[in-house]
């Protein structure tokens, strides 16, 4: 158990933290750049294994009473004229997933019935239809654009908010971290060729939320330390902030990861991509809030002056007033602390 009441920091000597995170910031940046380059290369070279949501086409999930023979199913399908169909197990040996690419001029979704009929005729057992998804190619295209737009607009919104609340260089730091996290997560999906479907897109958007949360918490501390710590270079101040927040960062990442692992192992096959993306995103996001976000802001030359409260009062802006109130509170508290020292 930690006894927290005894250590009192000397006001003259600032403790910049036990772990010197910032010491390895250049190797970390190089490491990140390599990862990102590998991801971009993977996306370009291998491409994403896009799900039916994006490509259009048909997905049919079936359950056989006993283990299903994939070779036989492929033969039956080829006989029915679907020789390009992808057939794979889904979850267990009894469950089968069939993917059929979109066909030119296929006006209605009668295909699933045809496939079902063909397989049922060939099999003596009763096949249970678990799920059919048919998406026309043009809907898939729309979804891809909409998804990309959603991410873009989210980034712009965040950029503006962080620039208003902090400073534009922090904003760029936060965006750099987000781009980093998303690129690497997508890169992993490209390299492993795991299916990238709509739920994975939702997960990417959640990663934006999570990674941002992490980054903002660190930035908030950096800003506070710039205002309260008298000595120290920007690098030292950032380092202190990272150390201050380390307990919190690890704790939050741990609880989130635990929940995600529960989702991954118990949530069922359909949610696997979603859980995988989020697990990768949380790990990468935690790392990037330490290295990518702060390093970017520092490299862009954030200094103490940038974050001191503005001299002139902006009464029309509620946010600024809040800041002033907060500063007044901190000052009052500092004075009171001094008094306490004196009375001792």
């Amino acid at each position: 158990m930690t006894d927290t009441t005894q250590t009192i920091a000397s006001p003259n000597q600032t403790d910049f933290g036990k772990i010197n995170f910032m010491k390895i910031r250049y190797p970390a940046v190089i490491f990140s750049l390599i990862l990102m380059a590998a991801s971009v290369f993977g996306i370009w070279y291998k491409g994403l294994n896009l799900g039916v949501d994006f490509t259009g086409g048909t997905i049919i999930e079936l359950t056989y009473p006993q283990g299903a023979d994939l070779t036989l199913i492929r033969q039956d399908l080829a006989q029915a004229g679907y020789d390009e169909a992808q057939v794979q197990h889904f979850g267990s040996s009894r469950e089968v997933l069939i993917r059929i690419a979109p066909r030119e001029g296929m006006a209605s979704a009668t295909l699933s019935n045809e496939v079902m009929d063909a397989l049922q005729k060939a099999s003596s057992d009763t096949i249970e239809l678990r799920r059919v998804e048919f998406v026309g190619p043009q809907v898939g295209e729309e979804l891809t654009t909409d998804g990309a737009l959603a991410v873009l607009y989210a980034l712009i919104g965040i950029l503006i908010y962080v620039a208003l609340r902090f400073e534009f260089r922090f904003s760029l730091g936060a965006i750099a971290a987000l781009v980093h996290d998303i690129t690497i997560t997508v890169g992993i999906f490209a390299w492993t060729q795991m299916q990238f479907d709509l739920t994975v897109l939702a997960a990417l958007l959640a990663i934006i939320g999570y990674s941002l949360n992490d980054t903002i918490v660190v930035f908030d501390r950096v800003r506070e330390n710039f205002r309260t710590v008298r000595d120290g270079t920007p690098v030292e101040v950032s380092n202190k902030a990272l150390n201050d927040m380390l307990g919190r960062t690890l704790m939050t990442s741990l609880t989130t990861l635990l929940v995600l692992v529960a989702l991954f192992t118990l949530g069922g096959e359909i949610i696997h991509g979603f859980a995988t993306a989020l697990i990768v995103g949380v790990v990468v996001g935690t790392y990037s809030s330490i290295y990518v976000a702060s390093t970017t802001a520092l490299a862009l030359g954030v200094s103490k002056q940038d974050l001191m409260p503005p001299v002139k009062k902006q009464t029309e802006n509620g946010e600024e007033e809040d800041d002033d109130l907060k500063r007044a509170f901190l000052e009052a508290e500092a004075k009171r602390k001094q008094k306490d020292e004196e009375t001792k």
Partner: protein
Amino acid sequence: MFESQRSLVSNRFPMWKYLVLITAVVLGLTYAMPNLFGEDPAIQISPAQVGQFNQQTTERIEQTLSQAGLVPKVLEFDGQQYLIRFDDVESQLRANDVIREEFGRQAIVALNLAPATPNWLRALGGQPMYLGLDLRGGVHFLMDVDMDAAVEGAYRRFDDEIRVLLRDARIRYQAVDYANETLSVVFRTPDARDQGFNLLNREYRNELEVRSVDVEGQSLVEMRLSSSVIAETKKFALQQNITTLRNRINELGVAEPIIQQQGERRIVVQLPGVQDTARAKEILGATATLEFRLVDERADVDRAVRTGVVPSNAQLYQFRDGRPILLQRSIIVSGESVINAQSGIDAQQGSPQVSVTLDSAGGRRMLATTRDNIGNRMAVVFIESRIETVERDGELVRERIVTRDVINAAVIRDQFANRFQITGISSSQEAQNLALLLRAGALAAPMEIVEERTVGPSLGQDNIDQGLMSVIVGFVLVLIIMAWRYKTFGMIANIALTLNLVLIVAVLSLMQATLTLPGIAGIVLTVGMAVDANVLIFERIKEELKNSSIQTAIHAGYEKAFITIADANITTLIAAIVLFSFGTGPIKGFAITLTIGIITSMFTAIVGTRALVNMLYGNKPVKKLSI
């Protein structure tokens, strides 16, 4: 030391904050509760025509059920339709059979799962969360309306009208062409062109942009639909198709179908519980049409019914209520000619009427017929072809069944062409129905299914079970970790976390937002991330304890962490709101739960835990915090 501090920081909440919190807890528990009661197997009986059910119907249903030896749990009537709950699926299915047999085509009988929420809770507006198709099973269709065809149809109508207009005005023209969204009339002479231009411009100023042009020595008048007319045409096509789909889906007897517009040209159809997609598609593609026929006034209807002998130029029909009527064999106009039908009130007589618009070919035929038959009656026949599964020689076979009903027979008072009114309708409700039927026959523009998703009931149940399991396991793990790491404060955070989960469920139930599998994932993620606010506060308190007394540390911990929590959550909220506005389907479901989760977790983590901390430690001489 504590004496001097008490005046500086106060860790005490005013009474109103506790009241807000208690209210939130009570409301949260109340509105989350309906989810615990499960569902009753039920059948839903709705009338084929509005306002058809009355007290006698109730007796009829009760009698039918008791004859079959069935005892319903509850029989509810909301003025429109009946909901009969049963204790088990077996009696539900049997009741479905007997009721269907008793009512035939007078009523639409649908199998339903009705929430078993107690009455007092329902009176307070308590309803369980609405489950998405991925959780309850069913079919989802996304239909795309061919808007180009709708716009072209509008041009074709003007095409016909313009020919008639020019002929009547005796302006000579060579041809009327339609190409590239432009109607062009070729005139023989520039003079005729100018006359034509003046006439067309006067007649269609509000609907068409009329220009006169000279191309390669030809004298042309070109017309394009004004943007407002195009927009209206598209809007009308979409609404018309939705109406038609709704009518057809009623035939399916699906409980709680969803038929919604999505974007400017798409329609979403969701049929919960339907597994037979083939049948669903058949019904959606069912056709209904109309015919206008003259009534055979000379023959004796009663005799025809009695003897079965029908005059050779006539056919025996029935009104919807079963009254017989003899109609002439020749059809004046069929449903394809009907462009529009609107119900309204006759300005002179104040009685309900339906205004019908025909295309010009239909108008010409109507004119010729009405000119010769003033004083006679004209009937509107509604023809519908459906596919039904019937038993034949012990085997279930699908058959196309065509039904023909006379919906109206009115006296022709004057000669008319492509626009006319059907009067002599007893109520405005009936006029609305007639207009609906006239319009409902055909689709305003062709549609195709661009997306189809079917989820089997077993998969839906698996999704619920697995989703629920992962929420529970994840949640318990988080509770254990928090209790281990932050001791008493951890337990306080756990209470807040539980309240958070209750509030999310309550808000989702209250909003009747659709819970989907990604929505469950959103809840799971919220649970994981919701601890962040408390972790921030507790870590801050620990930190403050190094430099100041316990009471100051608690106060400063909450105050200083607040700004951080607000900044972090507002940015996440921005992302969630963007997702909600741009996302579709599962992304939207995820964004809703995430948004609700962020807001409730901020409330419970900041206000909720503070209240408990204040009660336990606030302004008390505490030596040490269990944190």
